[in-house]
């Protein structure tokens, strides 16, 4: 399969010619933005370009990256998922309670519990959107509040600390010098990319976002495609919740507040259209890296967090403006 894909990519690139340069140019331009921002910080601070800092930067970006990849699926279908921050908190809380209430061998159960929580809430989002025709913004806004409420009820507003060593490995461990969260990010990215580019489901996601009526006329079960994207988004929010909980070594009831905005920002910076049907995971990955770089670089320069907020917002808008301008 892998060999097949690689050869497909090679022949695809050769046969596409001029007309196909467009999308590549597009993902290319986001790379340029990334490089320019990095170069700026490299000049401003000598520590920025060190291996250690990059490992750190990637780790800081990994949670947002994973969330953003899930949200990309939803946005490609012309939807939106505002609930990922709360869903990750609840998933983390459930996982933490499973870890602390059972013995070491049950880390697997904790992981499955966290992922399952995310997927289940995602499915609920999907069903509300597709079967009851509630606009995605409203449905997931409701879920944002409901999942947060559940987290507070379940935890009685208290953190769950004292997580086991093996659970803490998810967020804190590393393999051959690469932090586990970074590995998770790249794994999720690779799978997501293959799904979007090489499977029928991926094609359906683009088609449904581009024109859902035409997709239905073409014989696509648009509802199940749309609902599936919310499940994916929820599942990845659950995964991000596991990583966050593990890294903070405790499940916090306020975890992940506002994370949905960074995730959506990463998707939009990455060039995915909020109108659906256009976009790519490569863009999203770089979008998340750009946000991570800005955070990291400004931390290094000692910019106060108040100014960081201001500058980050401005950079997001300018990045998208440049993108529009180029079009």
């Amino acid at each position: 399969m892998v060999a097949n894909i690689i050869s497909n990519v090679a022949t695809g690139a050769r046969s596409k010619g001029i007309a196909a340069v467009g999308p590549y140019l597009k993902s290319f331009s986001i790379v340029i933005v990334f490089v320019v921002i990095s170069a700026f910080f490299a000049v401003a601070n000598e520590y920025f370009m060190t291996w250690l800092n990059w490992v750190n930067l990637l780790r800081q970006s990994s949670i947002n990256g994973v969330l953003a990849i899930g949200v990309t699926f939803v946005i490609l279908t012309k939807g939106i998922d505002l609930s990922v921050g709360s869903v990750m908190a609840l998933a983390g809380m459930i996982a933490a309670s499973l870890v602390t209430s059972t013995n070491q061998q049950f880390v697997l159960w904790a992981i499955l519990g966290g992922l399952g929580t995310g997927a289940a809430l995602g499915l609920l989002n999907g069903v509300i959107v597709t079967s009851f025709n509630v606009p995605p913004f409203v449905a997931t806004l409701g879920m944002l509040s409901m999942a947060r409420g559940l987290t507070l009820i379940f935890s009685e507003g208290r953190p769950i600390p004292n997580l086991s060593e093996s659970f803490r490995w998810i967020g804190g461990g590393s393999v051959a010098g690469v932090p586990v969260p970074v590995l998770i990010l790249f794994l999720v990215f690779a799978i997501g990319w293959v799904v979007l580019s090489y499977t029928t489901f991926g094609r359906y996601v683009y088609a449904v976002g581009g024109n859902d009526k035409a997709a239905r006329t073409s014989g696509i079960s648009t509802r199940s495609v749309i609902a599936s994207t919310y499940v994916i988004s929820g599942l990845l929010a659950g995964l991000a919740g596991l990583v966050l909980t593990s890294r903070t070594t405790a499940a916090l009831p306020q975890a992940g507040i506002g994370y949905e905005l960074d995730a959506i920002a990463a998707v939009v910076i990455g060039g995915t259209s909020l109108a659906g049907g256009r976009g790519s995971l490569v863009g999203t990955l770089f979008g998340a890296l750009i946000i991570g770089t800005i955070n990291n670089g400004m931390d290094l320069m000692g910019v106060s967090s108040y100014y960081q907020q201001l500058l980050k917002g401005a950079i997001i808008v300018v990045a998208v403006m440049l993108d529009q301008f180029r079009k």
Partner: protein
Amino acid sequence: MLLSTGADPEGRDEDAFEARDEPLLVAEGIAKSFNGVPALRGGRLVLKRGTVHALCGGNGAGKSTFLNIVMGLLHRDEGSIRIDGVPVDFRSAAEALRHGVTIITQELSPVPEMTVAENIYLGREPKIGGLVVDFPKMRRAAKQLLDDLEFDVPLTARMRDLSLAQIQLVEIAKALSHRADIVIMDEPTSAIGEHEVHILFNALKRIKARGSAIIYVSHKLTEIFEIADEYTVFRDGRYIESGAISAIDRNHLVTQIVGHEIKTVEKGRPNEGAPILLEVRSLSRGPHFKNISVTVAAGEVLGIYGLLGSGRTEFLETIYGIHAPTAGDVFLDGKKVDPGNPKKCIQRGMAMVPEDRKETGLVLCASIAHNIALSSLALRAVSGFVRRKAEAAATDQMMRLHRIKAASPNVAVETLSGGNQQKVVFARCLLTNPRLLICDEPTRGIDEGSKQEIYAFLREFAAKGNGVLVVSSEAPEILQISDRIAVFRQGRLDRVVDGHETTQQMLTDLAS
């Protein structure tokens, strides 16, 4: 001129006469390329006052490109445009409008959430004290306009609730309301019926009479011979010829457009006693159509003819599962078809070319290849993975077979000319290997040469033992391809007539 230099009053008179005789619009040497691929070279057109000028050409000939350049919607690479002898170079449609040029574009763009009246006066709403929109006045003006044109469109309806034909009527009304000197109409009649076309033609004659001029694009040649005074032909992005319509016949025009002579398709008769492929039993759906029973035998083309609003599209869409019927059943090969599920219908061997390619036919922002492959992705996939090589081979073959003119299979469908877009829809349907092809206005926006190709294709497809169910508003088209014709009237099946013995006059009489 020389003679009159001494006598001032006479000189003015002659100047005035010359000005009147001078053409209203002269466009010469217009060229335009998209991404380095030339779409138009040396496009020219001379438009005289008080005439209807038909701009003819096959799909992708560059007609829309040319007209969009005149209107300032696209910017030309080369060439000059003069209006009343004054060189112009419009940068926007608003600027063109100020100079008395208006357009009905091929791809309609209504604001779906706004009412008909609001759409007509979009951006130039009558206001009270220059601030608040004067809705009563706007509605009165819109009503007056539509009444004058005799267009039957509900004023307060939202655009998204209108049929494609009604949307087109609104766009026509909107363009005419500008009282422009030059009215450009890019396939204004592709979605409306013969009755509405005649109403439109009456309006055009009035516009002509007041000295304005119309550039008219249509692939329906009958219309051109009815309304046009002059014609210009483009082929493959080049100017071919122009002249008076009275000086040529239909054959000459077709040959100029296509570049070679074409043969019209002869239809054979289907086998007697062929098995029934599709059976529709007393199908009803709400107010749209009631109690309709028809059959399509293997090897047969069943045409459905009727006026706009006679429930034809709803009927087809219900068979294909886009809507669930309120009563009745559909059987394919004697087995009942699950209602309300297009996916199942495709699996059972149906395919549908929908009426409105932009709304329901195509994913406009996706590539040609992705659109063509969309319905049949699952057929060629291996455990959910698209087999790209097989897909590329299949789409390439389809593009060659249907002569889809494009720079590459990877360009977005929205960049194709209208007719080529329609061919992409066809290609998508055929890749699922259907046994029953349901077509709603299959040749909308398709040029004369390709029309005959599609007729030939439909006959051939049926001759292989498949069935075709086709709706068309064009009587000649229905007569040319159908074995039997079901005549619809106000949501009911009036009668089924033999396609070999009916004449055009009989058909239009039956439907009205």
